[in-house]
């Protein structure tokens, strides 16, 4: 009996060694260990074995079975490993083939610039608010110290709807709306669309965007204005950016200034970008005129404040080196996709 079992085992091991596919291994398993397999047959013939030998024979059968199973399992794993290796070898891809992108859309450069600006001021505790595009003469002019007959009214080439209703020429009117709410202190920026009767060309558009800023509190100084806007410029154009304040005139601020930043292209040495001056004009600003405070119901003896206005398109054109303003309103997808 033992000899027979050894024979089965020997033959099985030989067959296993000679098999290189899982199918063949399965066949061997069925042929030897299956319901009608050789070893199963041996078990079936146990009744012919004398009872006292049965435990011994049973043990032999089990040992033989375990051995064959172990070798079979080893062989199966080896074969599967070989198969998987072979498959992976055949699955080599050209990783330089083009990517499959979920085509994500692109933000308008104006919005990218605006969100940058919002991020900076929100971080400094400013609230972002809005005012109407179609505005009354009072909010666009009069409450900003630009009374009837003021030359600034002509300078800005206003679009009128009626004598009293117009398309706002500046976002500065939102200053007044905000001050009239009577909630102090104020730290706000107000982005928005503005309109001026300029013909369309590479540097002009009858409709563009500004971001207005306003801070009203006790003891606000021109030094605070300088510090805040210098911080803004560094955040927007880089840590190395220097700022320069030049006196200017706006009817609703006094003193007033224009702020230049050191050219972020050449670092201030002078290049084509900054027309050789090393500086680029960025925004207008100033201390809120006492009369403007007064008109909006704020006591100019108790409160002071500063205001500023940034041209959004100007920032976008400069920052992203866009050479023609018309591109911003054409919506050519090849343009938009670059942002």
């Amino acid at each position: 009996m033992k000899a027979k079992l050894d024979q089965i085992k020997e033959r099985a091991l030989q067959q296993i060694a000679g098999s290189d596919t899982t199918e063949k291994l399965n066949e061997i398993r069925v042929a030897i260990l299956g319901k009608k397999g050789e070893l199963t047959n041996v078990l079936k013939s146990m009744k012919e074995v004398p009872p006292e030998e049965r435990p011994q024979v049973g043990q032999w059968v089990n040992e033989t079975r375990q051995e064959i199973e172990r070798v079979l399992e080893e062989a199966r794993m080896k074969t599967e490993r070989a198969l998987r290796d072979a498959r992976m070898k055949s699955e080599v891809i050209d990783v330089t083939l083009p990517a499959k992108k979920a085509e994500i859309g692109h933000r308008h450069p104006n919005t990218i610039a605006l969100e940058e600006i919002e991020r900076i001021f929100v971080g400094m505790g400013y609230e972002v608010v809005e005012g109407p595009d179609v505005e009354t003469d009072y909010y666009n002019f009069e409450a900003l110290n630009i009374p009837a007959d003021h030359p600034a009214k002509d300078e800005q080439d206003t679009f009128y709807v009626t004598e009293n209703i117009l398309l706002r020429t500046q976002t500065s009117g939102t200053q007044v709306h905000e001050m009239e709410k009577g909630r102090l202190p104020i730290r706000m920026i107000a982005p928005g669309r503005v309109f001026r009767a300029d013909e369309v060309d590479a540097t002009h558009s009858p409709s563009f965007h500004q971001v207005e800023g306003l801070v009203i509190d006790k003891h606000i100084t021109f030094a605070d204005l300088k510090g805040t806007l210098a911080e803004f410029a560094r955040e927007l154009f880089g840590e190395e950016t220097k700022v320069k304040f030049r006196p200017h005139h706006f009817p609703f601020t006094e003193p007033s200034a224009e702020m230049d930043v050191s050219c972020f292209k050449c670092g201030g040495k002078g290049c084509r970008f900054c027309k050789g001056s090393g500086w680029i004009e960025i925004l207008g600003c100033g201390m809120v005129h006492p009369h403007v405070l007064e008109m909006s119901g704020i006591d100019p003896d108790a409160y002071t404040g500063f205001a500023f206005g940034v041209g959004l398109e100007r920032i976008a054109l400069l920052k992203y080196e866009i050479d023609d303003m018309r591109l911003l309103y054409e919506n050519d997808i090849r343009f938009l996709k670059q942002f």
Partner: protein
Amino acid sequence: MNTALSWIKAYVPDLDCTDQEYCDAMTLSGTKVEGYERLDKNLEKIVVGQVLSIDKHPDADKLIVCQVDIGGETIQIVTGAPNVMLGNKVPVVLDGGKVAGGHDGGPLPENGIRIKAGKLRGVASNGMMCSIEELGSNRDMYPEAPEEGIYIFPDDTPVGADAVEILGLRDTVFEYEITSNRVDCYSVLGIAREAAATFRKPFCPPAEKVCGNEEDAHDYVQVEVRDTDLCTRYCARVVKNIRIAPSPEWMQRRLAASGIRPINNLVDITNYVMEEYGQPMHAYDLNTVAGRKIIVRRAKDGDVFQTLDGQVRKMDKDVLMICDAEKEIGIAGIMGGENSKITNDVHTVLFEAATFNGPNIRKSAKRLGLRTDASGIFEKGLDPANAEAAIHRACQLIEELGCGEVVGGMVDVKKPLKEPRRIPFDPVRINSLLGTDVDREEMLAIFRREDLVYDEASNEIIAPSFRQDLAGYADLAEEVARFHGYDKIPTTLPNGEATTGKLSYKLRIEQKARDIAEYCGFSQGMCYSFESPKVFDKLLLPKDDVLRRTVTISNPLGEDFSIMRTLPINGMLTSLATNYNRRNKNVKLYELGNIYLPKALPLTELPEERMQFTLGFYGEGDFFTLKGVAEEFFDSVGMRKRAVYDPNAGKPFLHPGRQALIRYENATVGYLGEVHPDVLDQYEIGTKAYVAVLDMPAIMPFTTFDRKYTGIVRFPAVSRDISMVVPKDILVGQIEKMIEQRGGKLLESYALFDIYEGSQIKPGYKSVAYSITFRAQDRTLEESDVSAAMKKILNGLQQMGIELRQ
């Protein structure tokens, strides 16, 4: 305003700085320099030479060979210039020198033209004689220069001297941008005063002298101002025995540098004073002034008047006229009349220096379409005190230049001049506004340099009449700031009560809209808010459509920009059309922009501005692509209920069978659809396009950023698939509504997985298949639970006339 630096230096003699230093310092003190140009740019090695001999060129008929003394040395020059005579003194550029341009007076090359010794037709030429054009100027500025040929100096010019210097070209012209509040700086004296204060040098204005003979101007002319609201002052002086001649070179040069062509002494003096004092003047031939009387009054509607440019213009009752006893002779502050024009035969001149109501001049000039140099200055509102100073200065120059005999006295009609403004001087408050610590004495020193007077007794600053811009403490603070130096003011950050930085809720929702649109592949466009009224026809809107009621701009750039848009479709389709026309493929755009809906017409109050989230595309995708974006957006802003799509949207610009209103909790929140083929034709879009418009104000009330976790149910779900044969006119939306109503508490979800119309289905029907999923929160479902729920649904189907497919 353009002015030669030499003219400024005439009044600030100690000014000593480079052009760049001047530019920087003036800009930083508030007189912004736009740019400057050296008049001797590219002029090198140019001296005065004298022609000693002229010989014919042996080999060229049109050339001559000259021996020219250039001061201790004689050089040979070959020239083709026709006007050179023996003994002439001429500008000569030497070997290796440079001139600014060619003799044809064309555009000047950036780097000039280098002149080198060489041979002309075989004869050596060691330099070049120059025309005024080659020196970078022209005959407008140097009227004495010949029309063609070499510039000839006066005989007393020293040979060998610097020709550029003698021509007055060793100078720099600065261009300033003057802010509208500083009327006084539209003058050489105003800028010089600023320069003196900026550089802390003495300001030395011309010594003014009131001259005139024993006679009295009142005996020559009478002045009557009838409309005193429009004419604040009228000064008149008389000059007789006029001798017209060229003005002296120094005056011509200064005017030329300012861009004013010298003409003759009389005209030049008025222009000179206009530049110097910022006060336009007018000269009349007194013999043409009827009745020797000046009347200042409004014109009458419909009057016609011929201005001295020969044009006949129509007046109205708001135009101020200068008249004599019989007729109009000039439009006040704008332009004189043809009928009183000065000729070279003039004998007696009436000088006028007046100040008018600035806004009236501005409006009149605009209405007449006649903006002149004078009106541009008058409209700023001039200082009446300056008018008197200017007219005396003009008479002084008349006398100095021997241009005529000044009659004594001045006819002066004026409203009482305003009392000078007095501003309390509060250095503490000034410092606390600026955030500075400027010494009181430094402040007073600054004011003194600007000719502001400090009244110690009352502790007030008295603003001189030319500083109409100074009114309160903040104005004084600006004076301190700009002369102390904006750059010297410290930089600090505001302290005080902390505030919360945030976006308004509306802006946060809009930001979400942008995010979702972009995740879905749409790029952001921006369109104008105004458009043409013709777009309504392009969009097939009926004549009486409410959207044709627009906010209309009364002074638009043109019809194409004349109405505020009432729907965002035109902007989107125009953008898609631009892309289509440029052969861009698969274009997906979105826009967030306002529409403007009038509450009543004509407009009595501000229109309603409604933010629209508009999506549009052509290329890959269809109606349901847009529907998907809309639903992604709703989901992202917390709108978790089911939006309902009503096919009866009634949008004429959309395909009648492919459009829907989007309704959410019974509110219309937008619409979407395929663009009507006729509209596509209008926009020349040769492919299907789709648009969706989400009305943000309607959406806002349903939005929220609140989220609540509802748990993940552990019990298994059971799904049933049903396949139906549905009459074609039943929308799947109706089936879904029924499933929702009848599915009961156990219904978890349902999903359409097949829809088919075709040969296997009987005509008038479509095959629709749904997978319906049930789940209980608290137990494993029994078969009987599911069967009961399904039975209700199947009954519902039956009631709708829907059969189950076998």
